[in-house]
């Protein structure tokens, strides 16, 4: 019998209260009438099925009633319903979006097996933590470091694919044969590289990305074994990589083996290899780092000329993101959590107010016989409905935000696409939603019900005021404080953005169009052939209508920040330190004019600067200042890029590394003054032109000019210089806009909170206000009373908010581009904004209070 009673607990309590005794009696009589094991078994099986089916049906019945009731109740108060759904949607949406992004970028393991063993290896010199390795250093590291099971190297390049339709410029990566096995990847078709593919002199081999295979080869499985032309050289396709393999970046379309010739190992300053190691099982990152330190110390002793200051750095591949990208994301998550906090506070406030407003109704229903459990159940249903609808809207909001968020994913991440909604995120959103709904729906409901009695009916609306009122005030104060934190953080980031945008890059980006004609090697290895190409293209392009000037240069500022070489002065040893290097660019005449870089002394490079004439250099002002602070730099000599160079011109400095970082001094060399096949990485490939014509209108003519110079030469990376500069701050701009929007929403919610609380106070105290007015208080006094309460709330929220905001600003300091975390302008604006919001929130309640008719107010109770 006890067991049957336990079973009956599955029924709703209200049903049990009504029928439990009867049902037990009925079951007991049945049991008495049953004998035999079989009969007993049938009785229990029947009872079990009876309870299961009917208990579920009884619950469903109540749920349906409650839902119907909820819909009616919410329809009666649409303002409340819409506000509540809006608030929940905001909190859930912001958090789902922010945490999807954070999960995608920071937490999700890389799509390779055992990602915790994959380590990115860098060289380091004073001032630079991430320097590529030279082939010789890589070879020695690989041979000496026992912490690693395997070590592979790669470098990115671009190749022209000709003969498969339009000539196309493709992103490619050259890899050593041990690199792909380290990543634990198997080809979808064919095979990976073997050490035999790395040998000099054997035929070229290539692996295609899945995307390239589908788009250029129609997904034909017979592609393996076919030959294709890359930069004019034949390569045999040996395989196709799987669909979701992306390394090192998403754009890479094919992989080729790295071939080192004997000369490659001679120059330890030729740093262009990125290295990836796989830790031996059981070896920690710290142990590996310590071992690399020993190896680099040995190399520094053996090769002091090149390696004296070369150290090593190793990061888990997973963590090889810039600190800044990480901090920006964490800031976004923090802001989203703030919004959730505010949303919860607001929802709690709304529900508390509603619970108070409904006390009368609840008391009435209790008096009519509804059990407390039924009432609570009803209120929970209501809160959950609000939370679920809000959550669903929130998820839609988050999904709508994903395209925008995709722009915050750092490009260096070897994963495809952008963040999407996955099941875990849906579960996360559901959890937040549920907790918000239950936490802030049930608690006020329980409190409201506890006070439910006939007293409430007798007392009218005035019961339960004080404590709940102070709870609501505390919630509003919290909202205000959090809004201040968000507003200040957003304000600081926006000021930092403005400051960065205002930084003079040293060149004029307006109306400058750039595009790349990356010349394939070895076809263009002879310097003279390259220069013939440049001359032909430039002479045609300069003749185009609207084109004021044009030039070729190795790399565009900001688009390529590397290319750093040691500078050697007479009688000094070569030192690869931060203050002994400069960024190297080969250029044709006209580059400075095209980019509006002022020539301060001397001249630009000239057509007549060839390998036969004196080797010259144009240097930037900071270069001249550093080496000849008190003397005329013109005519001075220094050793740079293998040759002794004479300074013939001094030009303004430019921000090669973008507005946020210090750039090395710049050295520009004439394009012809380099030996055949020497440092071809620096061969000018970027065409820049200043033009008053629309880029779109100009492009076909430029394309034709290039085609006439070399019909097989594709052009790529067409962009305006303005876009490149804007790109520098693009993710910051998205970030600032997102945070700004969140802050604005937070402020709005806080304003709604103040308004709600004061409105409630006014109606709660209408009788008191009536009495005061009857006793001679003027409307001005009443307004003062209401506004005074609003201002007290504002002060109580803003003061701790300002302190917290300062701490938040300190945390964001590295993102602030030298805007101080205590920036007075930002803080004052935020405080002023909060005051305006408070005033706006006070306005209607105060107005209503002032217009209260004392007689009606007193009589109404």
């Amino acid at each position: 019998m006890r067991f049957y009673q336990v079973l009956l607990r599955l029924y709703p309590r209200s049903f049990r209260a009504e029928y439990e005794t009867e049902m037990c009696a009925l079951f007991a009589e049945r049991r008495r009438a049953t004998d035999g094991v079989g009969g007993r078994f049938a009785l229990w099986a029947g009872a079990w099925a009876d309870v299961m089916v009917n208990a579920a049906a009884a619950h469903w019945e109540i749920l349906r009633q409650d839902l119907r009731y909820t819909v009616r109740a919410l329809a009666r108060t649409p303002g409340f319903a819409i506000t509540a759904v809006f608030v929940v949607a905001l909190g859930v949406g912001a958090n789902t979006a922010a945490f999807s992004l954070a999960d995608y970028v920071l937490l999700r393991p890389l799509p390779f097996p055992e990602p915790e063993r994959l380590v990115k290896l860098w060289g380091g010199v004073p001032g630079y933590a991430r320097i590529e390795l030279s082939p010789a250093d890589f070879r020695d590291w690989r041979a000496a470091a026992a912490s690693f099971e395997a070590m592979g190297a790669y470098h990115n390049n671009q190749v022209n694919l000709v003969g498969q339709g339009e000539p196309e410029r493709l992103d490619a990566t050259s890899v050593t044969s041990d690199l792909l096995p380290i990543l634990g990847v198997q080809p979808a078709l064919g095979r990976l590289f073997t050490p035999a593919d790395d040998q000099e002199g054997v035929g070229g081999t290539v692996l295609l990305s899945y995307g390239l295979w589908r788009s250029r080869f129609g997904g034909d499985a017979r592609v393996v074994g076919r030959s294709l032309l890359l930069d004019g050289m034949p390569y045999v396709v040996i395989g196709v990589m799987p669909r979701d393999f992306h390394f090192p970046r998403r754009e890479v379309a094919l992989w080729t083996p790295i071939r080192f010739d004997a000369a490659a190992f001679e120059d330890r300053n030729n740093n262009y290899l990125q290295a990836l190691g796989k830790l031996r099982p059981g070896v920690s990152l710290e142990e590996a780092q310590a071992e690399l330190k020993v190896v680099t110390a040995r190399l520094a002793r053996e090769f002091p000329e090149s390696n004296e200051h070369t150290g090593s750095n190793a990061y888990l591949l997973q963590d090889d993101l810039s600190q800044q990208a990480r901090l920006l994301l964490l800031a976004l998550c923090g802001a989203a959590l703030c919004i959730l906090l505010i949303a919860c506070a607001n929802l709690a406030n709304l529900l508390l107010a509603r619970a108070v407003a409904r006390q009368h109704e609840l008391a009435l229903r209790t008096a009519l016989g509804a059990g407390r459990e039924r009432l609570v159940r009803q209120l929970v249903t209501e809160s959950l409905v609000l939370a679920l609808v809000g959550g669903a809207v929130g998820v839609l909001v988050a999904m709508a935000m994903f395209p925008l968020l995709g722009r915050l994913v750092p490009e260096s991440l070897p994963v495809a696409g952008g963040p999407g909604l996955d099941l875990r995120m849906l579960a996360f959103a559901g959890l937040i939603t549920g907790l918000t709904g239950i936490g802030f729906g049930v608690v006020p409901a329980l409190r409201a019900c506890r006070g439910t009695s006939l007293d409430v009916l007798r007392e009218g609306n005035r019961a339960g005021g004080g404590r709940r009122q102070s709870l609501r005030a505390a919630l509003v104060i919290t909202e205000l404080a959090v809004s201040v934190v968000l507003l200040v953080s957003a304000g600081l980031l926006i000021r930092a953005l403005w400051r960065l945008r205002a930084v003079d890059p040293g060149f004029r980006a307006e109306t400058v169009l750039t595009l790349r004609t990356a010349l394939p090697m070895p076809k263009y290895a002879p310097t003279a052939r390259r220069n013939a190409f440049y001359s032909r293209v430039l002479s045609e392009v300069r003749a185009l209508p609207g084109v004021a000037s044009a030039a070729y240069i190795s790399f565009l500022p900001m688009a390529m920040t590397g290319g750093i070489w040691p500078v050697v002065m007479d009688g000094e040893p070569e030192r690869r330190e931060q203050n002994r290097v400069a960024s190297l660019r080969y250029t044709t005449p006209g580059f400075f004019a095209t980019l509006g870089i002022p020539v301060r002394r001397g001249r630009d490079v000239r057509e007549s600067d060839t390998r036969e004439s004196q080797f010259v250099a144009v240097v930037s002002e900071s270069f001249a200042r550093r080496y000849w602070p008190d003397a005329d730099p013109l005519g001075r000599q220094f050793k740079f890029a293998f040759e002794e160079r004479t300074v013939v011109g001094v030009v303004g400095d430019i921000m090669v590394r973008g507005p946020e970082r210090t750039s090395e001094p710049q050295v520009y060399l004439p394009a012809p003054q380099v030996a055949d096949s020497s440092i071809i990485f620096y061969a000018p490939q970027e065409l820049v032109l200043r033009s008053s014509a629309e880029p779109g209108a100009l492009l076909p003519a430029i394309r034709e000019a290039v085609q006439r110079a070399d019909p097989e030469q594709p052009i790529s990376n067409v962009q305006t210089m303005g876009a490149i500069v804007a790109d520098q701050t693009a993710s910051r701009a998205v970030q600032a806009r997102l945070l700004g929007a969140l802050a604005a929403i937070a402020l709005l919610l806080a304003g709604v909170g103040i308004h709600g609380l004061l409105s409630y106070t006014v109606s709660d105290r209408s009788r008191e206000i009536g009495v005061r007015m009857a006793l001679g208080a003027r409307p001005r006094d009443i307004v003062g009373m209401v506004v005074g309460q609003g201002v007290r709330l504002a002060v109580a929220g803003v003061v701790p908010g300002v302190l917290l905001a300062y701490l938040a600003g300190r945390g964001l300091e590295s993102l602030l581009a030298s805007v101080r975390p205590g920036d007075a302008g930002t803080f004052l604006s935020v405080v002023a904004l909060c005051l305006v919001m408070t005033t706006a929130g006070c306005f209607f309640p105060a107005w209503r209070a002032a217009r209260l008719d004392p007689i009606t107010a007193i009589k109404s109770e």
Partner: protein
Amino acid sequence: MPESTPSIDALLPLPPAAFHILLALADEDRHGYGITQDIAARTGGGVRLGPGTLYRSIQRMLEQGLLVETRQRPPLDDPRRRYYRITPFGRAVARAEARRLSDLVKLARAQGLAPARA
């Protein structure tokens, strides 16, 4: 506590359990166990309502106004037992359901799917 009395048609077809309960109460007031006993006897043991089905049906029928609980009971009966009585509305609904069923049988008979009236 009937919320509002629905129309007869809205209640048809009646769930079999509800129809049996109405039949059991047609001639006299009964308590829950009595109702199941009566139904079992009337159907030769073919229909045995479980406690859950019985009381959930009763709860709904009370809400629909088909039954009422009555305080009149035999003198020596267990005071904890609750007795139920059919209302005039309940009778009307039972009659309508019986008519609906017999119309159905007529249709079946016309198609030769049911035995002719004896």
